[in-house]
């Protein structure tokens, strides 16, 4: 199935340019992994990055730089890349960009957040306030109306989610700016699995305010 809701050009520029924080970038690339159209859009943006790189005025390196690099190559030294260990294969996320973040997918540390809602903390950055969380929501579970201090990005992994702008199915991408107040919901006959990244704590309101203790960590 081909997703019909995609990240904006601006958001893809942030991912491709490298300015998006890791939790939000993870939601974007998870969508890209499910969307050939956005794979092509990203290729265009990264090609622009290549031209930008190519056209920079070169900064000379130290005279011995290449010799030093060859020496490091011979030492077998590797860069300090924080490549995340590959988890055992298998499971629904085996070839997903999420795989390196989840460890053993058969044994995810689901945490019950309230009736019908379970979550797994996937990645937190920037003082832990920006984070990506897996949500498993049982059919028909009401979700709280809330506002944001920062942006929110969602990719639906399984099932269906209703939000501003309609119904979203597997692969679909939803982004909201800081100023929106919204109340997503889940159909009565289908569970939903999605990955949501937010910047800053959520602001709850209305009758669901009483749920705040449950959501205090999201």
């Amino acid at each position: 199935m081909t997703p019909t809701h995609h990240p904006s050009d601006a958001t893809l520029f942030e991912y491709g340019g490298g300015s998006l924080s890791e939790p939000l970038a993870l939601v974007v690339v998870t969508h890209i992994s499910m969307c050939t159209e956005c794979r092509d859009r990203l290729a265009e943006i990264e090609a622009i990055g290549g031209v930008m790189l190519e056209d920079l005025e070169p900064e000379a390196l130290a005279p011995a730089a290449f010799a030093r690099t060859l020496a490091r190559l011979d030492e077998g030294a590797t860069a300090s890349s924080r490549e995340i260990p590959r988890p055992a294969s298998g499971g629904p996320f085996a070839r997903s960009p999420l795989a390196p973040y989840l460890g053993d997918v058969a044994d995810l540390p689901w945490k019950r957040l309230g009736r019908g809602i379970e979550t797994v903390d996937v990645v937190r950055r920037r003082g832990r306030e920006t984070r990506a969380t897996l949500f498993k929501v049982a059919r028909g579970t009401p979700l709280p109306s809330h506002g944001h201090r920062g942006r929110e990005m969602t990719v639906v992994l399984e099932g269906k989610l209703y939000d501003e702008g309609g119904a979203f199915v597997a692969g679909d991408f939803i982004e909201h700016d800081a100023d929106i107040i919204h109340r997503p919901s889940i159909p009565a006959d289908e569970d939903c699995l999605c990955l949501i990244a937010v910047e800053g704590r959520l602001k709850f309101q209305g009758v669901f305010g009483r749920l705040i203790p449950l959501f205090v960590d999201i």
Partner: protein
Amino acid sequence: MKDDRGSPTAVETFARQIVAIAEHGDRAAFGALFGHFAPRVKAYLMRLGAPAAVAEELSQEAMLLVWRKAAYYDPRKSQASTWIFTIARNLRIDAIRREAHPELHPDEPALTPSQPPAVEETIAANQQEQRLRAALKVLPPDQAEVVALSFFADKAHGDICRDLGIPLGTVKSRLRLAMKRLRAALGDVL
């Protein structure tokens, strides 16, 4: 190199050099790539605020990654400059911002290294870089500015709009318009 920068010949040469590293650890090819790209990666890192000494060190690390990851480079899918840009971008995020840049899984069918491509197939899109460069040159300045900031500011667009004193919606629409023009210029090359 400046004169034929981005020309189909130069673009193709860089791609072949990466393939030569993957195929037989070609140090001469690595040297040529290093001479061209390491000073540009250093400039990229400095443009994003890294001190010269840090940029020097990281540009060498980026070239080591070019060597190590050469087998993952597919010249049919991207220009050498594109691929090296993504390596430099990710290394900077790792080393300076202390985050990872989440990527497609390396076992994605689309990413798995294939048999070395036949020479004729190499860079089917070898004019892409020239076309993009030409299209970038004629972008309206307000669009060109936000495109450049997307690569060189390490700022979310929300912060960029505050810096420029324009609404966020304007930043977004300029990027959308820029992308439309650039995509049109690429035509069916990609």
